[in-house]
C-alpha cells in the first residue's frame, strides 16, 4: 500500500482541483492573460485620450514633445528591452531547474527595472526643478531665482513658449505625467513581484516541474515593456524633425 501511495503522490505544488501540473500551468497562464486583457483596455483608455487630443492639437503636441529628453528616453527603452531579455532567460532557467542562474537573472531584471525608474525619476526631477511655482509651493530653495523659467508641470504655475500653444501643451504634459506615472507604478509593482519570485526561487519553491509563477510574472513584466514600446515614440518622438 505505502510504496504505491508514495508512487502516486502528486507534486506538492499541484492543487487538488487540477489533473496534473501541465493543466495547472495552462490554467494560470490563461488566467494571467485574462488579467492582461483588462490591463490592455486600461492603458487603451489613456492611449485613446492621447489620440483624441493629439489629433486635435498636433502642433502643440509636437512642440511639447520636443521638451522631453530624447536621450534619456532612448536609454530607458534600451534598459527596459534588456530587462525583458533577462526576464525571458529567467523563465528559461526556471524551466531547466537552474536555480542559481534563475536567482541571478531575476536580480538582473530587478536591477534593470530599478535603473529604468532611476532614469525616469531624474527626468521627473528636472521637470519639477525648473518650476518656480512648484518650488515655492513646496517651500524649496531656488523658487524666486527661477522665476521666468518655463514650467512644464501642469497646474497653476504652468508656462510654455510659444504662449499660444500653452493651454494645449499643458494637456500633453498632463498625459505625459499620467501615462508615464502609471507605467512607473506598474514597474514598481513588477519589482515587488520579482522580489517575491526571488524569495521563492532561493527557497527552492520553483522547480523544473513547477515554474509557472516565474512564467506568469514574466508575462506581466513583458506587458509593462510593451506599454513603454508604445509610450516612447508617442511621447518623446513626435515632431522631432521640426
Amino acid at each position: 500500500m505505502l510504496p504505491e501511495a508514495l508512487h502516486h503522490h502528486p507534486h506538492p505544488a499541484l492543487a487538488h482541483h487540477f489533473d496534473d501540473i501541465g493543466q495547472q500551468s495552462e490554467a494560470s497562464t490563461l488566467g494571467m492573460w485574462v488579467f492582461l486583457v483588462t490591463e490592455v483596455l486600461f492603458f487603451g483608455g489613456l492611449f485613446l485620450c492621447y489620440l483624441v487630443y493629439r489629433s486635435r492639437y498636433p502642433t502643440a503636441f509636437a512642440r511639447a514633445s520636443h521638451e522631453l529628453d530624447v536621450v534619456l528616453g532612448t536609454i530607458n527603452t534600451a534598459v527596459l528591452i534588456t530587462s525583458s531579455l533577462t526576464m525571458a532567460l529567467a523563465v528559461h532557467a526556471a524551466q531547466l531547474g537552474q536555480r542559481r542562474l534563475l536567482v541571478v537573472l531575476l536580480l538582473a531584471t530587478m536591477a534593470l527595472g530599478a535603473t529604468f525608474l532611476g532614469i525616469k525619476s531624474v527626468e521627473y526631477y528636472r521637470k519639477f526643478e525648473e518650476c518656480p511655482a512648484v518650488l515655492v509651493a513646496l517651500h524649496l530653495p531656488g523658487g524666486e531665482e527661477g522665476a521666468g523659467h518655463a514650467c512644464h508641470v501642469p497646474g497653476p504655475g504652468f508656462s510654455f513658449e510659444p504662449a499660444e500653444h500653452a493651454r494645449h501643451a499643458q494637456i500633453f504634459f498632463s498625459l505625459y505625467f499620467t501615462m508615464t506615472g502609471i507605467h512607473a507604478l506598474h514597474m514598481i509593482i513588477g519589482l515587488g513581484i520579482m522580489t517575491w519570485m526571488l524569495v521563492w526561487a532561493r527557497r527552492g519553491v520553483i522547480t523544473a516541474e513547477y515554474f509557472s509563477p516565474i512564467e506568469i510574472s514574466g508575462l506581466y513584466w513583458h506587458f509593462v515593456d510593451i506599454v513603454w514600446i508604445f509610450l516612447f515614440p508617442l511621447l518623446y518622438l513626435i515632431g522631432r524633425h521640426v
Partner: protein
Amino acid sequence: MSEHIVPKKIYYTIFGILMLGTFLTVLIAYFDLGPLNTIAALTIAVFKATLVVLFFMHVKYSTRLTWAVVLGSIFWLGILLAITMSDYLTRAWLSFGGSVS
C-alpha cells in the same frame, strides 16, 4: 504546451531585432516624412510588441484558448479606438441646420 522550452538563441535574436527597431524609430523621427512619421513609428512599435507577445510571452507556443484571449484583447482595443475616433475625426465633416459655424 507551456512546457515548451524556447531555445536561448531565439531570445537573443528577438532582443537584437527589438534594439534595432528602437534605433530605427529614433532615427526615422529626425526625418520629415509628413504623416508617414507617425505611421512608421507605430508600425515599428506594433511589430516590436508582436515579437514580444509571440516569443518573450510564449504565445506562439500557447494553447488556442490563450490565442483567443490575446486576439480578443486586440479586437476590443480596436473597438475602443475605432468607434471613438470615428466620432471625433468626423465631427467637423457636417453641420446640421446651419447653426454650427
